[in-house]
């Protein structure tokens, strides 16, 4: 296998991390916290898309409906659950979202069972070639969707009033309320948007690794790594970091005998640790300004 193929495979893996990392960045930028249930929320909406496609709904329509449901789900979870813990310590929020993750996981297994399911891809799996390297239309489509999501997020946060309001609330809710911003509505909007991006990630990933309740468990770890590595407030950073992680993970597994397949999964975490030692704000992130 040549090195180009290794890089392309790595980017495909990285794209999986990237989809979820984008949703994490979205919640962080609009609420200032990390949602550990993001992956499981995406799994739930992917199951919904699968269930709809099983009844004969075309996969594209099923995905669109699942994304819409994910938007509502994100908003409802924020309103009914997260709102009660608003303004608490980070540790409290971590425990709440981890609890949510476990709960959704249980619900998914309760409804659909734990066995593997096959879900159709949004894109055909035809093979494409570039020189000696091989990849599929699905891979290209995944990257295209990711790039579109980055562009939309960047425009939303940097160029729109809603984006400015979301950033203000994430920075300091009480201070934003003094400017008359509707805090509750904005926090709900942030969760709703992240729900949409996460579910899009879920349906892009599922055809590649097959649908099962725990399909995003390990992905979530790398997505968190990518989001932190890229700088939590930068969508482009998150995706680039995810691709770097995927590629390095692949190359290290192939070319460094000591690493092999067993230690391959540890590589992204080592990279994260090293980068954070040198650049605590991440590769693309802005240094957080602390009040003293």
């Amino acid at each position: 296998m040549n090195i180009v193929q290794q890089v392309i495979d790595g980017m495909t893996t990285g794209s999986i991390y990237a989809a979820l990392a984008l949703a994490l960045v979205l919640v962080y930028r609009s609420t200032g916290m990390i949602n550990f249930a993001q992956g499981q929320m995406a799994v739930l909406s992917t199951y919904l898309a699968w269930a709809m496609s099983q009844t004969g709904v075309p996969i594209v329509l099923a995905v669109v409906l699942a994304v819409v449901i994910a938007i509502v789900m994100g908003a409802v979870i924020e309103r009914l659950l997260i709102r009660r813990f608003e303004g608490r310590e980070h540790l409290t929020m971590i425990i709440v979202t981890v609890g949510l993750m476990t709960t959704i996981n249980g619900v998914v297994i309760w409804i659909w069972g734990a066995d593997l399911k096959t879900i159709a891809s949004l894109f055909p799996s035809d093979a494409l070639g570039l020189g000696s390297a091989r990849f599929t239309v699905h891979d290209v489509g995944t990257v295209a969707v990711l790039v579109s999501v980055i562009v939309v997020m960047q425009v939303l946060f940097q160029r729109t009033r809603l984006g400015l309001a979301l950033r203000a609330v994430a920075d300091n809710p009480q201070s934003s309320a003094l400017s008359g911003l509707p805090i509750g509505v904005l926090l709900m909007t942030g969760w709703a948007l992240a729900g949409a991006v996460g579910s899009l990630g879920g349906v892009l990933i599922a055809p590649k690794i097959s649908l099962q309740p725990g399909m995003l468990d390990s992905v979530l770890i790398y997505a968190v790594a990518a989001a932190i590595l890229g700088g939590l407030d930068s969508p482009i950073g998150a995706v680039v970091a995810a691709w770097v992680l995927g590629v390095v993970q692949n190359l290290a597994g192939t070319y460094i005998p000591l690493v092999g397949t067993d230690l391959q999964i540890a590589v992204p975490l080592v990279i994260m640790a090293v980068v954070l030692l040198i650049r605590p704000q991440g590769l693309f992130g802005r240094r957080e300004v602390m009040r003293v």
Partner: protein
Amino acid sequence: MALLEIRDLRAGYGAAEVLHGVTLTVEEGGTTALLGANGAGKTTTLRALCGMIARRGEIVFDGQDITSLSTERIARLGVAHVPQGRGTLANLSVRDNLLVGALLRRDRPAVRADLERCLAMFPALAKRIKAAAGTMSGGEQQMLAVCRALMSRPKLLVLDEPSLGLAPVITRRVFDALVGLRAEWGVSMLVVEQNATLALSVADWASVLESGRVAVAGPAAEIVGRDDVRRAYLGT
């Protein structure tokens, strides 16, 4: 006519009542100075006014009872509160901070004009327009906080210790700018200030708090002349 009327306001933190019936008025276009020693309840009064803590009594703003409204609703009615310390969004740029102040306005050309006006008043802000607010000095952040509040074109500007941490020359500039805008934009003001002489120089009415009650109230010009009040409550 009174823009703001507070009657028998009681508020505090948890079970501890700090305000035991505060009565206060800000006239339309006027400025009221709220004075008193540390711990008298000045900041608590402002926090209660803006719906940031539990409160009882009656607060009427612009003809509407706002006693039970949320902070964001009160702000939308035209009350802009510059809290004590740094009322800025630390990770947002200076420009974004100013635009957040004006987010609820629809008159974009006027917002742009107001933004230019603020930058002209405080060139220090113009120089650091792209910097994150939290990286600026305390004085610059205070100017930014005041400008952010002004950007909403409030009917009532509520200032909590605007001179805190500012060099006297900067303080003077902030107050001069406020006095100018008060006439031009028709902003009324409620000012809490340790520096009583400064506050009384811009106010037309003054209320002096002591232990959560109004001990003395009257026209600012009269309070300035009352040595007994100054000695007893203002430490000047």
